[in-house]
């Protein structure tokens, strides 16, 4: 065997160990980010999630100011706490559009009646098709969308009271 070739295992080992050290040193970030940040919303047209409330389509985002697109579900427990924060955002003049994931009209209606309704329109996404197209991996998630329908910011997980300044700032920047 050639002399230099015999050092190959050592070199490979060094490379593997370097990668493993990097992994140990960098905390694992399990958040899955959407690749659509900075890109326009995917095309969709959803039926109304509750009777008596407007349906939601991607076209609704063109024109007007920036707004918050919130993905939620009546069966989602963190969404219950989030909806109160959304109410405060709404009182501060934020326009919020909702998409109800894998839900039933009567359940959504009960959820809104019990915990409050911050939404302008709510689209029903029974098979998570739009959710997946948006690059969202869970419920709840929110997107700041500007007046031209471009996604400017993704928030993974429930929006808590401490997140409100960030969300307002992102909405301001999207103006």
């Amino acid at each position, binding site marked *: *065997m050639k*002399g230099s070739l*015999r*050092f190959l*295992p*050592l070199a490979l*080992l060094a490379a*593997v*160990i370097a*990668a*493993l*050290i*990097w*992994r*140990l*040193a960098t905390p694992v970030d399990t958040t*899955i980010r959407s690749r659509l940040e900075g890109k326009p919303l995917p095309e969709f047209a959803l039926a109304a999630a509750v009777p008596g409330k407007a349906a939601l389509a991607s076209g609704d985002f063109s024109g007007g100011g920036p707004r918050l697109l919130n993905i939620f579900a009546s069966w989602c427990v963190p969404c219950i706490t989030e909806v109160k924060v959304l109410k405060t955002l709404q009182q501060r003049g934020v326009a919020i559009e909702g998409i109800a994931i894998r839900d039933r009209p009567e359940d959504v209606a009960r959820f809104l009646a019990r915990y409050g309704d911050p939404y302008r329109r709510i689209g029903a996404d029974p098979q998570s098709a739009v959710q997946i197209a948006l690059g969202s991996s869970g419920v709840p998630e929110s997107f700041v969308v500007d007046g031209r329908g471009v996604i400017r910011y993704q928030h993974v997980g429930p929006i808590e009271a401490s997140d409100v300044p960030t969300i307002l700032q992102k909405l301001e920047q999207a103006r």
Partner: protein
Amino acid sequence: MIAESGLAALWLAAALAGLQFALMLLGFGGRAEVGRAIRAVSVAQGVLALFSFALLLILFAQSDMSVRLVFDNSNSAKPFIYKVAGAWGNHEGSMLLWVTVLALSGAVLGLFSHRTSERTLVAALGSQAALALGFYAFLLIASNPFARLSPAPPDGRGLNPLLQDPGLAFHPPTLYLGYVGLSVGFSLAFAALLTGEVDLRLARAMRPWILAAWIFLTLGITAGSYWAYYELGWGGYWFWDPVENASLMPWLAATALLHSVNVLAARGALKAWTMMLAVVAFSMSMVGTFLVRSGILTSVHAFAIDPQRGTFLLVLLGIYVGAAFLLFALRGGSLREGAPFELVSRESGLVINNLLLTVILGVVFVGTLYPLFVEAVSGEKLSVGAPYFNAVAGPLALFLAVLVGIGPLLAWRRERRPVFKQLVVPGLLGVTALVITLILSPDIGILPRLGLAIAAFLAAASILPLVGRNPLRAPLATWGMVIAHLGIAVAIAGMAANAAFTSERLAAARPGQVLNVGPWSVQLLSVTPTAGANWTAIEAELRASRGEGPVTLRPQTRYFSDPPMETNEAAIDTLWNGQLYTVLGKEDPEGGWQLRLWWKPFVTLIWGGGGLIALGGLLALVGRAWRTRRRRRPADDWRKARYA
């Protein structure tokens, strides 16, 4: 007192490992009394480690909640067998088992190995002590299994219900015996590179260890596969999970090593390669331990997500594997290869076997660590799953299986006989199987179809070494080889049949309703609550029939309270030609119950094949041991004279 004694024994064993290592440095000049001393120390160290582990078992058996480890992993309501098995169903306990096996391997090597020169043995025991020292340090500094808890809580948190299964009693210890048994191959290779005595005697000293470790690995992987199959309720036997791969990689390296060490033992060839493989095999064991214990890759097995422990293990891995690779780089060039061989010969066959196994090992290794590399370089997240492994490793494995049928027919050194004539019958069988599958099931995938054909070919070809001679007079090792190779054919047949012919049915059924899956009609009779020692459950009663008399299956959803967790207990009916696999899911609002039903024709062949492979290994091990005992001296002298 028991916990304190266990800890003291562990410290003492660590001290003895230090002494053993020092003796190696002292005794390398070849002083006879050092050889005797180092053997004695290795035995004492093994006994102390075993004592320490036995005390941990007692603590678990007694449910001594003043010990933190027992509190975290046990509960007084748990059945006795799981109390004991719980001792290794956690990080600290399993690492203690690891180091105990390591120390015991050293002790057995010190007691019984007379095949290598004294110099090489002393160096091997020193290397074994160096390995043990690192892992004692790991236990004592970062994972003390005997830490106390004060005040002692009234009862423990309990063991993960998925582990409360007979599988736990069997799978981890077997796998560890395999993982750690490879350490002796590593130490012997390290020692031989150090002394320059890479020869037939070394290969013969190494061979039983590799064979034994390989048998345990085979059994451990097979048992683990079946355990996952029935316990996790997904109906699959292999998921290409990083930790499954971590056990497959040492097995692949050990399989290659097992064959190359035979070339070295019989012909004195492939010296550098065999030493490299011996190092790689145990390195893969350490990589496996690191992957599981650091929780670095997302996996069903990653128990302890602890960067500190991960760092510790990574440092050990770097030191040991780095030292061995460095030694190989420095000394590998001085190895002179033994007897030459021609292109068509048993040696060439085994070289190709080794190359293929090594490529498959590389494929699995790269696939397992690729997501990590990609994220390190580009920050992008991705995962590598079954589609990659099946598509890349599958064809390679099938090609290897074809060669398995041919290789054993070749003679050492050069083959001039028309070997391929013998392969006519197996070849025809393979083609027949191919044609039958084309006619009867034209739309199965290409890999399963080839798998079925190659399994038929290999099943016939594997027994050829016994044809044309009196099988009763064939050496036991030949029988072992034949049975192991037949086992490969059987396992491939099982995997191919499972991939090609499984029928699945997922449906919500109300009591009384009938569902069809494959040839079966399954009726949901009732769903009732039931209870066990430390769980309550919802149990479905299913009546399944396909022509002959009906069978009753009772899948459950179990609810454990300590720790709170829900598990699915699949109900499986095993027949000669397959398994009916049933899982009970949730109740839907309309009063129906989710049922998952699978009919898996010939799936049991997968584990039957695994068992045959291990049995073949066992026969070879016993046969070789018996033969060497019968004619050790003259044979050794003769070979020494010939290849000195």
